[in-house]
């Protein structure tokens, strides 16, 4: 069967993240949230919600909007 839409995922480097939350506010699918653990810099880094979801149920399109707006290049994006 053919896929309707690409699925993707992202990784966020906790320690690079400075908690500006631009990714949170710009992700079209609202798949990023604020974690409550502090990183070493004293920020609450952003977290990808679907990390543990299996590919099939992911809503992340790998559009890279989050990475585009991330000032600190904390996000890497994967897509198939």
């Amino acid at each position, binding site marked *: 069967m053919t896929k309707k839409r690409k699925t993707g995922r992202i990784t966020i480097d906790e320690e690079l993240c400075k908690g500006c939350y631009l990714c949170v506010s710009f992700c079209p699918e609202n798949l990023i949230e604020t974690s409550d653990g*502090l990183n*070493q*810099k*004293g920020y609450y880094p952003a977290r990808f919600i679907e990390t543990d979801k299996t590919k099939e149920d992911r809503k992340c399109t790998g559009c890279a909007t989050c990475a585009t707006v991330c000032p600190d290049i904390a996000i890497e994006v994967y897509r198939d």
Partner: protein
Amino acid sequence: MSSSKTAFAGFGGQGVLMMGYVFAVSAMRDGKHVTYLPSYGAEVRGGTANCTVAISDEEIFSPVASSPDYAVIMNKPSLVKYEGMIREKGIMILNSSLIDRDPFRNDINVVRVPANEIAKELGSDRTINMIMLGAFVTATKTTSLDSIMNGLTEILKGKKGGLMDLNRIGLDRGAEYVS
């Protein structure tokens, strides 16, 4: 005691310089000689910031503290930097929210304050530095909470009152926590 040097250290964003400045102004209003020496590393954004405040009843010859009496440490890199410098029997106030280990020194007194957590309860990261400051003056008796409040009022005059209250609360919570 009539004369002391304190180092305040942390990340640029943590209000470290403000903390030291408030302390300095307050001591000043207590009629002390004061020197306030910010690390200019702070000019370059983000990097670690620190400042040294020396207070004394007489003229201060050097604002630098090769071995500070007190240290207020807001993050791990700063711990690494100061744990060796602080003088014997000195007091170190640690932000335990960000620092998961103890200093290697066993000849100093360590006070741990989970400032970020407390701040979270208060609902504003802005208060972290005031929480630490409250804890600091209470633990070291270098000056009174009231002097600090007066100092704050002087510095923030013109600014909107809400900020003031928030700071007051932060100071108190920090003080409570250590007393």
